[in-house]
């Protein structure tokens, strides 16, 4: 079955990207690398936010002037080059999808249920994503608005529920400055805004750069609140924890209510589902101009195979979890390719 691709609002698009970024806040341990001063903790976040928006500008600019996504625009100009770029995008979406899925599976088996079988969790998530992938971006973005509300409630609950444990001395005693660069690399790598926009931006109606900046800001405020709360509550203990934000949810308490780890885990399941579905939709958008069941199933199958291989082979596992590969792919898909199309557009305008 083939369905024509519909459009979604800018707010819905940016919310779905915000939720995808949230997966990494909860499931990657790099956030435990906390700064030694409150001001310094803002630096990697602000650097990565500025760089992400700078990278996004090229896709935005091409779409604003031509109404086409980066991939579509290049396809009209040079088919061979477009095919090469498409291959890079497809690889990036498969890689990111596997990373999201494996991060979630790892958290599931280490923190929730040690006896759970990894391949079965991977299979179930993949099956769920076929459904959302087939339903398309419009249905997914509507669900994102509800999950975003759930995210805000959870963040507020976890932060407020830990208020009694806030220890401002922790901000002075944490790690050194050398982790700042590492942190900035991570935040940029985990930002899907430029890469996903390069493929999906033509499906966003009433788009504006201000909207993107606003939602990018919200995304980083959520990350900042969680990182700072983790530092204030757990202090250096967060270094010992594999999932510091998840540990933070365990300490949440209001009188009789104790522990919000169940709530946090539900949220992680939702955002993983959203992230994986979004990658599937991006994959579909890259290969086809219509919503196709075949490309959705194919993308989910490839993510399943890569994730499954990673559970059996250490080499594949470390390949998927290599922060610098993710960073390079993000730079390539979010900056280099959109910049090439931006230059092509400028040259066309000049001619």
């Amino acid at each position, binding site marked *: 079955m083939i369905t024509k691709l519909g459009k979604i609002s800018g707010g819905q698009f940016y919310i779905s990207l915000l939720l995808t970024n949230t997966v990494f806040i909860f499931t990657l341990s790099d956030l435990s690398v906390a700064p030694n001063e409150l001001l310094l903790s803002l630096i990697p976040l602000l650097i990565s936010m500025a760089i992400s928006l700078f990278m996004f500008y090229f896709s935005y600019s091409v779409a604003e002037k031509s109404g086409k996504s980066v991939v579509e625009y290049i396809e009209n100009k040079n088919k061979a080059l477009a095919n090469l770029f498409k291959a890079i995008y497809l690889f990036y979406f498969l890689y990111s999808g596997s990373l999201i899925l494996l991060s979630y599976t790892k958290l599931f088996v280490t923190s929730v249920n040690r006896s759970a079988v990894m391949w079965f969790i991977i299979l*179930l998530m993949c099956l769920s994503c076929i459904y959302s992938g087939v339903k398309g971006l419009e249905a997914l973005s509507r669900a994102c608005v509800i999950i975003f509300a759930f995210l805000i409630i959870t963040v507020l609950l976890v932060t407020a529920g830990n208020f009694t444990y806030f220890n401002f001395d922790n901000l002075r005693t944490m790690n050194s400055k050398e982790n700042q660069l590492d942190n900035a690399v991570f935040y940029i790598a985990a930002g899907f805004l430029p890469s996903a926009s390069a493929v999906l931006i033509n499906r966003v109606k009433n788009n504006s750069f201000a909207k993107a900046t606003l939602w990018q800001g919200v995304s980083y405020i959520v990350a900042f609140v969680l990182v700072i709360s983790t530092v204030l509550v757990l202090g*250096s*203990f967060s270094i010992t924890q594999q999932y510091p934000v998840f540990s933070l949810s*365990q*300490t949440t308490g209001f009188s009789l209510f104790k522990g919000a780890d169940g709530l946090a885990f539900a949220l992680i399941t939702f955002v993983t589902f959203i992230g994986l579905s979004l990658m599937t939709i991006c994959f579909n958008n890259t290969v086809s101009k219509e919503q196709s069941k075949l490309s959705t199933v194919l993308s989910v199958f490839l993510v399943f195979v890569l994730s499954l291989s990673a559970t059996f082979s250490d080499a594949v596992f470390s390949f998927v979890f290599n922060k610098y590969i993710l960073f390079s792919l993000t730079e390539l898909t979010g900056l280099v390719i959109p910049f090439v199309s931006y230059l092509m557009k400028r040259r066309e305008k000049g001619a």
Partner: protein
Amino acid sequence: MRKTVITAMLILITAVFSGCSQTGIEQRGIIEGVIIDNTDKLDISYTFSMFDESEDSKDSLKTIKAKNIEDALLSLEKATGKISFWGQCEYIVLSFGTFDNAYDMLKFFIDNNKIPPDITVAFGDKNAVELLQKEKQQPSLIISEAEKISSSNNKVRTTLMQLVSDYIDNKRVASVCLFKSESKSLICSQAVLQKK
């Protein structure tokens, strides 16, 4: 057809993700607290305060001597025939010694994701530890006593995360809650734990 597939998927997801597993509640040994006496370095004495509906203090306190907590847990599981469950563990009481010893004893709890970082950690003198090993105390008693001390002085470290943070931050000393036994009852006071 579509509804059937969605229903089947929902049932599968609920069954897997809700934590329904082969181990029933009656097969689990629910640990409420641990008392560790490491005054003898070679043979550490671990007392596990187990949840027991009958509230028989003799049945619910299991003391095992072992080289480390992993070995002690294996022996506990063999003796009770139940799989240990840490999700309800509320306190750890260690025999009073040095900060380094305490950190070594707490390593297992730091790595265990089922144990919340704000679990109560207190210390006991020889008599208090002996009393805790013989008579089961309600977790609420130990927690409330520790909370009393920490509310009177916020520098007192009464949780796992506070104590471990101080150790990682290379603090030479830490104020902790120390239980003493007086006429078969526990009295909590403030004490200073020092690094070697």
